[in-house]
């Protein structure tokens, strides 16, 4: 068994004249959780579809569980579970029937499927709804059923394509719990997300992609360090005193403060002692402060500094091959 669950080298995918992937390199080690982070149209789904044998790369190659996705798709499919952006379950069938059907199509023994289905329904909190058509499920329940469907054969590698897109915050937290549980059991996970918080929460390593290219890679911490240290952020109560506050902050900051309405933020070095100096400086100026905090850069800051645009910002429609019909060649 190879140490690498997923290896992709120079993956290029063109849809007609649109280049969805411009040469992606990616490695996921066994037992690791890698988050593929990028805005809409960055190429995340295309990567997952190539790795799960649904799409052929235009060039480059990829191995999943040691098998080439183009030459040995059948072997790859036996090792993976895929949960797409859409709850890919038959909504007319009940939760249990869906699991039974997918289990049979994985060619698993009926008795095993029966027991495993019951176990999955139980652990995903779907036992009460198990014999109702999936049509009656809430969005969160459908996603959990979808994830359960991809786990029926106990895959060693799991692809999760935007597993929480469209879910309300509570369902999202529930989904995170479920995913963290799988990871604790040793499943290798490659997940895509456009939520920076989600990648931060779930992934050991983050690969940031934009316009079909990897633009940064590393742990959440290294990515944050890459764009510099901590920032101090204060909010002023009296609008007329903003300038005084900026002058006070300048005396402690290591860079130019940024003003947005009543909030001033600036890069600082020196850890928490800088807070004390800042408060003193503001006190000398006699500026009343509503809020003061020292924060590490978020992945939002990382994204902004890497790409020049925010992560949630939609890419131009022409960069979005999945909206152009069915990705046909």
């Amino acid at each position, binding site marked *: 068994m190879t140490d690498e669950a997923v290896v992709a080298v120079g993956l290029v995918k063109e849809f007609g004249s649109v280049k969805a992937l411009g040469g992606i390199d990616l490695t996921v080690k066994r037992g690791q959780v890698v988050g593929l982070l990028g805005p809409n149209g960055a190429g995340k789904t295309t990567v997952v579809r190539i790795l799960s044998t649904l799409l052929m790369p235009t060039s480059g190659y990829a191995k999943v569980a040691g098998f080439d996705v183009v030459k040995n798709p059948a072997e790859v499919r036996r090792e993976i579970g895929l949960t797409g952006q859409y709850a890919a379950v038959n909504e007319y069938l009940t939760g249990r029937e869906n699991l039974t059907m997918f289990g049979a199509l994985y060619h698993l023994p009926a008795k095993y499927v029966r027991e495993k289905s019951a176990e999955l329904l139980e652990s995903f909190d779907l036992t009460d709804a198990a014999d109702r058509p999936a049509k009656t499920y809430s969005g969160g329940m459908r996603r959990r059923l979808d994830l359960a469907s991809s786990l029926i054969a106990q895959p060693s590698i799991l692809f999760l394509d935007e597993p929480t897109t469209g879910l309300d915050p509570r369902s999202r937290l529930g989904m995170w719990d479920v995913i963290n549980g799988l990871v604790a059991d040793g499943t290798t996970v490659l997940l895509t997300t456009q939520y920076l918080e989600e990648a931060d929460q779930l992934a050991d390593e983050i690969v940031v992609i934009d316009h079909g290219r990897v633009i940064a890679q590393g742990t959440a911490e290294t990515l944050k360090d890459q764009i510099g240290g901590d920032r101090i952020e204060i909010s002023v109560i009296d609008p007329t005193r903003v300038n005084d506050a900026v002058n006070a902050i300048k005396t402690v900051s290591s860079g130019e403060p940024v003003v947005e309405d009543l909030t001033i933020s600036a890069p600082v070095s020196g850890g928490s002692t800088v807070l004390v100096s800042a408060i003193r400086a503001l006190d000398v100026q006699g500026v009343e402060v509503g809020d003061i905090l020292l924060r590490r850069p978020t992945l939002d800051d990382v994204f902004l500094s890497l790409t020049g645009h925010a992560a949630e910002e939609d890419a131009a429609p022409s960069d979005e091959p*999945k909206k152009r019909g069915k990705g046909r060649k």
Partner: protein
Amino acid sequence: MTASVQTRKRPLLGWNISDGVVVSRFSLVQTLRVPELMFFSLVQPVIFVLLFAYVFGGAIPIAGTGTSAEDAANIYRNYLMPGIFGQTVAFAAAASTVGMAEAMSTGLIDRFRSLPMASGAVLIGRTFADAARQILVLLVLSITGFLVGWRITGGIWNAICAYLLLLLFAYSVTWVGASIGLAMPNVETASTAGLVWLFPLTFLSNAFVPLSSMPSWLQPIAAYNPVSTLVLATRELFGNPTGIQPDYWPLNHPTLYTIGSCALVIAIFATLSIRKYTKTTAK
């Protein structure tokens, strides 16, 4: 960590069939969950029977017609029923078109394609279930026909052969329907595209009017239309009036021509749609 469960082994054709049976089984379960859809797919042909039997019944003369208007209408109804059967089984294709388009739009196809299942099984199973649903439709239609005066006079074995021929035809058109469904960008387009070709297919035939009543340039087109030979073969097998046939090879060998066309259509469209399926992805 690898999958700890041992999967079963079987040759490829065996998997296509056994996976197809699984897909088919759950596709039929799905039918039972939406009784409304089944109900309306039964209502439409029944309405056709009533409209044609009573609205057009007296207006379309069939060779062999008796003297009274009542006789003429009764003969037309016996002529009509195999036509309605033929038209109805042809329309089974529309359900396959919508079914495939729907499975693509919900991402279900992506999931199926990521499973280690046989590549033809989803289509084999779906088309089989779509054709199997026609058994119930034919039953309801036969009862309706009986109530308006249609009679089987050709013997029980011939009648069984007629029903089997109709089901074979249904199975072959569901492959055409599935191929169209896979090529459509969304469900809305699919539901229109799935129907539009079926009207000329079924009306450019002897299903409702004798070929001799059509303009002479249209007759050969209708004569080579497999719906015409299906309906003619069915009329002969049920012992219903056939009218007088123009002299074309398919009309002289309707059963053979129908079986041959069905086999050809299945071979072509199964190849096309399975190839398309293995390359297609959701949306």
